[in-house]
């Protein structure tokens, strides 16, 4: 990540996010496993006739960490709920290896682990008890489950809360306990819906390590998120979904091929500052709150910096940063919207 900071403190959130996520993923699984194949999946809700999934086709290989990105309401959660057997597709097929998951939802529940976005019912359970019981429910052997519960608690640094009741856990710790619950005896496919919500940066990094370890051990991991910056570093491949359709699919790098000779200029505007007039060199721009991101040709970097500095001097902007384009830029291009990072001020 290259980053050139303006006069004020650097606005290099991509770098910070990269540190949280850790090193890029390399799947090492070479053994056998079950491939998840979703083919031409359509889901129209009877109530309201909303088309949530409109012909989605994708595959997740054993050992692969696969990201599902998209804005709220894009159809990501509907898609994974059909995989786990909570919803029935209107048409299309879902297979995990030889198993037809649409016809046999009980098989789907056994072979897939699911961490929903909603809170887990652990108010009256001790953290280690919740993890261990879920492992047993998932069919794990008692001794193995007990050992792995201890290991997960150590790996996620949850030891201080091991015997705490769920009611006494913070949102982030509850989320980590939930992650441990669904991965203590993981299925062939592990579906994680926004697993890092509420988790602090330190443990977020530990969580990503464990997610990668699931992949390394042969689990297919489906990661539902709208946190593009984290996904960029954590997944092997990803799909961007919007309005129920799969807009694009590939590795994080492949999304940035088109923009290799482009840079992103991030401006932190003063509160309530109007949109500044864009110079002609700006290829596209988006504003979320006070964050303005403009994609520019690499050759025009000097001109762009001069423009940004003028905005700072004029008091329109507080600071600026220049860096390589990210997956976020491809995401904006495809969906027309900034991701969660954009909303939070990432550049």
């Amino acid at each position, binding site marked *: 990540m290259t980053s050139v900071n303006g006069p004020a403190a650097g606005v290099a959130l991509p770098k910070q996010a990269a540190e949280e996520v850790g090193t890029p993923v390399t799947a090492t699984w070479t053994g056998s496993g079950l491939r998840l194949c979703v083919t031409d999946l359509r889901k129209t809700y009877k109530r309201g006739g909303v088309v949530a999934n409109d012909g989605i086709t994708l595959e997740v290989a*054993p050992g692969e960490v696969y990201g599902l990105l998209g804005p709220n309401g894009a159809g990501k959660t509907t898609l994974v709920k059909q995989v786990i057997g*909570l919803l029935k597709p209107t048409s299309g097929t879902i297979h995990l290896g030889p198993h037809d998951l649409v016809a046999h939802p009980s098989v789907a529940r056994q*072979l897939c682990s699911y961490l929903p976005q*909603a*809170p887990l019912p652990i108010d*009256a359970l001790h953290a280690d008890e919740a993890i261990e019981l879920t492992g047993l*429910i998932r*069919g794990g052997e008692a001794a193995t489950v007990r050992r792995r519960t201890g290991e997960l608690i150590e790996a996620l640094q949850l030891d201080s809360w091991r015997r705490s009741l769920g009611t006494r856990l913070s949102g982030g710790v509850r989320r980590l306990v939930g992650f441990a619950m669904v991965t203590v*005896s993981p299925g062939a496919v592990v579906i994680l819906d926004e697993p890092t919500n509420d988790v602090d940066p330190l443990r977020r990094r530990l969580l990503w390590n464990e997610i990668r370890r699931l992949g390394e051990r042969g689990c297919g991991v489906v990661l539902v998120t709208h946190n593009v910056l984290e996904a960029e570093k954590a997944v092997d491949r990803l799909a961007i979904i919007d309005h129920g359709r799969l807009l694009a699919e590939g590795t994080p790098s492949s999304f940035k091929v088109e923009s290799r000779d482009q840079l992103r200029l991030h401006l932190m505007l003063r509160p309530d500052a109007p949109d500044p007039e864009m110079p002609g060199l700006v290829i596209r721009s988006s504003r979320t709150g006070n964050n303005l991101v403009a994609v520019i040709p690499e050759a025009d970097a000097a001109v762009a910096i001069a423009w940004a500095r003028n905005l700072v001097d004029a008091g329109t902007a507080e600071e600026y940063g220049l860096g390589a384009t990210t997956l976020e830029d491809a995401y904006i291009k495809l969906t027309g919207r900034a991701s969660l990072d954009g909303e939070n001020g990432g550049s």
Partner: protein
Amino acid sequence: MATVALPAATPRLRSGPVEWLRSCAVMARWQLASLRLFIPMLAAVEVLAGVGFVLGFGLFFTSRVPATSVVYCATGVPVITLYIVGLVFLPQVVGMQKLAHTYEFLQSEPVPRSAGFVSWYAMNLLVGVPGMVASLIAGWLRFGVSLHVSAAVIPATLLVCLTSSAIGFAMGHAVAVPMVSNVLAQVLNFVAIGFSPIAMPAGQLPDWLASLNRGLPFGSMGTIMRSALGVATPDSVPGAYALLAGWTCAGLLLAAVAVMRRG
């Protein structure tokens, strides 16, 4: 960083009676642990309510309580303490799970749906039986009712709990709006206590209400319990068992459709 040894990436598919029993046992553990903050309180309320109902019943009468009323009270209140967990508390908890958005996680657990019901049934017995015993003792102490407890009290207790759990389980899962299932449970409880021949003879009810009750499960719950406690009953005991079996099957069928339904 700790090294975590993962199990095989492809878990084996589990089926068969042994796995079903294992699932029931572990779901019962989950249920008891999840409700550990409620269960002691609920059991205490059951005991107090059962005893209080028996003692309070006598206050309705200014003079000596009629013998028939005494017998119906002493044998009916234990039935109320048995059904109330399944019929009222169970749908409320399922409704709370829906409102708290924890319902889907529980539905995604890899256990047979029937294991979830069995765990509820076990909890119904655990909480209901102490209240039933306490109300029987209270009836004996307050009114001096002489009951002859036969072995039939076991199947009667099991069936009353089973029927109420099945109906409550069906309501909780089949009714989409938690508020509606909660109100429905309260209405049923109100009807059972005030307008059914559990704690009063059917002859004291208007004819139309007595006729209606012949198809409802509450009177039959009272009939099989009175019979098991050595009280002569004008109604057919085998018929009452059959009616409750029918309600249990209907409740389980509706519950099965509801929990296996995918939106």
